[in-house]
């Protein structure tokens, strides 16, 4: 089909769908007028039932924890898939050591960059940890914090260069981190069943409302998610960076962090 025919086809479909979309939009409750009963009910019930302030975390880790379990394993599937697809060509064996082109000079980095990264790295890590730990009281949680932590590891790359980064971060540690985090989450589901409770039932002490350690089992699940996401995203960055290394003329490290 020629591109023009394609656009005509799509436009025709759009024309048919337009009145339908208009009818649907007209039938929806006006923007901002009301929210669904389910959400309203959770806002009413969950603070008291689970002693947590952040309703989104309560839903993610308790009320609808199964969704998050699925989501975590979706991430795991994607990252495993990425690893399989990227390594398939390189061969599994090559990934343990930094791939350095023979004869390539190590590019010196300016002192300022190294220093800035050595300062910013720990700060990013701290911020990530803060976001992870405060899942039940303020915005954030294992996923957001994990992504921030993984981004922080990229600062090692910026400051210490590729080889230093590659030496600091080993692929099978990341596998262990990712798999271990996901395993922890899944076991949080199964463990309560041993006591006769339901899958993922919150059987731990709930703590005090607005306290950092509130929410019981949610804290463990949050930790599992944080581990899995940190490991997973770092693995993702690592594998992607690896793709750029086989170039004939490697790029100046640092360019891509714009």
């Amino acid at each position, binding site marked *: 089909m020629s591109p023009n025919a394609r*656009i005509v086809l799509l436009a025709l479909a759009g024309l048919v769908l337009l009145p339908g979309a208009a009818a649907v939009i007209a039938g929806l409750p006006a*923007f901002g007028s009301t929210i669904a009963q389910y*959400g309203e009910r959770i806002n*009413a019930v969950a603070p008291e039932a689970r002693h947590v302030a952040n309703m*989104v975390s309560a839903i993610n880790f308790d009320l609808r924890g199964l*969704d998050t379990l699925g989501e975590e394993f*979706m991430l795991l599937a994607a990252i495993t898939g990425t690893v399989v697809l990227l390594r398939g060509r390189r061969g599994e064996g090559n990934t343990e050591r930094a791939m350095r082109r023979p004869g390539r000079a190590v590019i010196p980095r300016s002192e300022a960059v190294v220093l800035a990264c050595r300062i910013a790295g720990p700060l990013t890590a701290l911020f990530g940890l803060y976001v992870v730990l405060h899942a039940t009281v303020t*915005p954030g949680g294992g*996923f957001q914090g994990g992504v921030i932590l993984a981004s922080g590891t990229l600062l090692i790359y910026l400051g210490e260069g590729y080889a230093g980064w590659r030496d600091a971060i080993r692929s099978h540690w990341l596998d262990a981190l990712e798999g271990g985090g996901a395993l922890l989450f899944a076991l949080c589901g199964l463990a309560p069943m041993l006591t006769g409770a339901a899958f993922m039932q919150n059987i731990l002490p709930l703590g005090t409302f607005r306290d950092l350690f509130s929410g019981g089992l949610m804290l463990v699940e949050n930790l599992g998610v944080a581990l899995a996401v940190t490991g997973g995203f770092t693995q993702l960055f690592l594998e992607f960076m690896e793709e750029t290394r086989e170039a004939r003329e490697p790029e100046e490290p640092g360019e891509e962090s714009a």
Partner: protein
Amino acid sequence: MSVLPYAVAAWLFGIGLYGIATSRNFIHLVGCLGVCQSATYVLLLGLGYRWGSIAPIFYDHPPGTPAVDPVMQALVLTDIVVGATLTALLLVLTIQAYKRGGSLDPEKLRPMRAVGQSGRDRGSNRVGDGERKAS
């Protein structure tokens, strides 16, 4: 105003589809897919919003204060993870496809081409990519 968010969501999905249909570069195409996905974020959060409500975090406000719908937010959170995973996977596929096929153009990469290695193969029957002009 009462329909704007939904209209924006529909627009984003439509323009994303248009982008995918006309894209000549896989990396660009992955970006367009992200636009389609952002339509779902906007739709869901728009549906879960209520004027004059606080965020569903009862830290500075006592429980019982009217808050927006936390369920929609939880759904969108999951959706964002979906988006990140899809983007990563598609980019990997794109990189590998480029290495194999030497092109990032969706019009040039074909899943399977017609071959004619059998004994009596008539050219008229072949529907190869030769018939498609890379316009």
